[in-house]
């Protein structure tokens, strides 16, 4: 049994310790908001937060996260997350939307650390998150919008 803390809840799973956290979240805990995109930490669709830091769950072994606080799209909350999700809706950011859970967790972590990010900060924080619909233009605008909301 491997013990996890996901979205503030203690959970136990009986899986191969090598199993990537991504598949434990999706297949064992039915938290399917975290997406599979590449399996090699090259696209960011599987991004979750581990103790507040954006982490690629497809390259994180479940046995390595015992004791950490894991936050997924289903559980993310707080000032930055609310501002980000509201800005995403206001600007109609998603198209296919498949990558947006990861984008939102990465953006939330960025704003928690850097409440007033520059375009360069956004490039640095968000370039690991691929969007094949290329909604980058609106993601950038929505991060700036969320930053303003948080200030106000």
């Amino acid at each position: 049994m491997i013990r996890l803390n996901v979205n503030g809840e203690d959970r136990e799973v009986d899986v191969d310790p090598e199993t990537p956290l991504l598949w434990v979240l999706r297949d064992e805990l039915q938290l399917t908001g975290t997406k599979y995109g590449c399996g090699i930490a090259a696209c960011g669709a599987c991004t979750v937060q581990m103790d507040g830091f954006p982490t690629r769950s497809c390259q994180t072994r479940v046995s390595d996260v015992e004791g950490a606080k894991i936050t997924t799209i289903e559980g993310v909350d707080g000032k930055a997350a609310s501002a980000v999700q509201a800005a995403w809706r206001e600007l109609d950011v998603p198209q296919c939307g498949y990558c947006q859970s990861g984008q939102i967790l990465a953006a939330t972590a960025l704003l928690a650390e850097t409440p007033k990010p520059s375009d360069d900060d956004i490039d640095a924080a968000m370039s690991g998150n691929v969007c094949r619909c290329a909604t980058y233009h609106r993601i950038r605008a929505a991060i700036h919008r969320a930053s303003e909301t948080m200030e106000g």
Partner: protein
Amino acid sequence: MLHLMQRMANAAPRPSRRSFLKLSAGAAGGLLIGVKLPGSLAQAAEGAASDQMFTPFVRITPDNLVTVLNKHLDMGQGNATGLATLVAEELDASTEQMRAEFAPADNAKYQNLLFGVQGTGGSTAIANSFEQYRKAGATARAMLVAAAAEAWGVAASEISVKAGTLSHPSGKSATFGEMAEAAAALDVPGDVTLKTPDQWVYIGKGFPRLDVANKTVGAPNTYGMDVQRDDQLVAVLTRPRAFGATVASLNADEARKVAGVVDVIDVPGHGVAVLATSTWPAIKAQGLLEIEWDESKAETRSSDALFDEYRTLAQAEGPVFRHDGDAAAQLEGAANVVEETFEFPYLAHGMMEPMVLTIHVEGDRATLWYPAQFQTVDQATAASVLGIPQENVAINTLYGGGSFGRRTSFDAKHIVEAASIAKIWGKSQPIKLVYTREDDTRAGYYRPMGVHKVRVGLDADGNLVGWHHRIVQQSLMSGTAFESFAVKDGIDSTSVEGVEDFSYAVSAFHGELHSPKVGVPVLWWRSVGHTQTAYVVETMIDRAAEAAGADPVAFRRAHLTRKTGSDAHDADNARKLGVLDKVVEMSGWSEGAPEGRFRGVAVHKSFNSYVAEVAEVSRRDDGTFKVEKVWCAVDCGVAVNPDNVKAQMEGGIGYGLGAILFDEITLTDGHVDQENFDTYRPLRMEDMPAVEVEVIASAAAPTGAGEPGTPPIGPAVANAIRAATGSVPSVLPLSKAGLA
């Protein structure tokens, strides 16, 4: 693809008369509005309307929700909201009460009116639904008004409807939900009058996307990948590395030892499938399979060898796709001739959600859950593999995590694979076929590679006099069930679209196409033939302008303004001029690029829409280019949701740009060299330019938006690079020549 659709439309039997009907909305109660199938008038007259002859488009329930049944797949392009906008407009509903659901697979009821089969593609979702869904909304409105009139004892003409509320000057008011049951008991009006454009409150204005809220909270059961059925097995299929190879030997001993693996099965003609109780054991076991492949009948040529063959073919005469005047003589006598040979690689679609499909076979019935983009073909294919009637195949459509063309293939390979696995497994158990990213990248169905050889002649005054264009490109349609629709006299219309309707004024035009046979499966890729043809035509126009000593915009204007002798081309040119002039104004083209920046322009028609783009680039110290800014003007007729049209232009630009800068699928001895996003490089945030889009106001019928933003970005960037370096890159991607 446009020509394909037009031919399919001509060939397909189309209902000549549709009348609207209503049914009770079943257990939920309320009003269900849709069209009645053709040929069932007599039954309708006898009051024998049944589910079988009724096509529901709109459901209004007592909880005051209006649900629109979307016959198309929404894979990000926004048609779920688009069709809901059309209904809400005529219904005078509020935005908050609108919902969208995917319709089931049923060709007779939900066919794409431009295809004759149920399917989504060619940027047709709005174009073919514009009247159908507005009429459904108008019919529902008329019935709600009639129900209120009866309940209140007033004249229907005295009742107004606004934002989901029915009201009368006497002070009486009701919601749609309150009147839904009563409306369902009334007769359906024979005909309804649609609003005139000046009465529109949503169309052309704005409407919030209905899928965005779910997509910002990771809602369950949104995508095909999210499907989790009870007792489900996950299948991961290892396909041959060379297309057409078969399994020579298999050792699955180590794979079978992985906890969670249920079986490893040979799927003849497709590969080897691992079946497991969840995803990770299946992926892990896939890596432990030892398979030897028999490649004796496989395609084992390398892409370098294919390009050599294509370049040789480009020297030879081929089947003619257009011949106007004597281009050879014009080129002979031209004061100036510009020529170039272009090379385009295979491209993968690389949508974020890899291919995925869940199938459950129960006796002579099968149920499928996935982002279904080609329902009629998929349904028939599953039925054929399983040996069951087509109507016994039910399709539950989920949102697609992108597609860009990938989820419709002529042979429905993903359906064949899943159905074959289910058939071999034999137990009545849901099976979810998951493509890993590596499987998805290597599975084929690429945009075809191609070589274009072009010669352009100008007279002493800088006018275009001759255009000779030869294309070498694998046919999408030859050998498929769609061949008779799309291939005529050796010409596959998808190979020549975007150049066969060349509309710049020119004295003579000659075009030829070679369609070599290659064993690599190819498919439409966002905007199909246009990514190649727009690149070639629009960069050659820039080269011609340079030879004529003219500004690229002035040269284009001159050749778009002159009469061409073809009414169709003149009409195209008027709209091309419209978007060109708009983008010139937006970008401040006449003032020139700022210091250190370079600009290029391109204008192109695809899917009956017209798009012009200006790209502004800068050069980095290492010689690579960064695309800083793109201005875009689009004329797609009536823009139902202008902000969504802008989003499609932004996305279409980004999608095309990533491919132009970085992407190619290459083969070594028939094996695909790329596997994942490390070797097939996607456009990232740091690569994305700022984008400014303007939508031209138009009263013309709506045309495509999902694809037309993509074709002009390649040539606009290439022309900007020409402005910086003096030469147009003719081999893609740009990274190959150190330009990106």
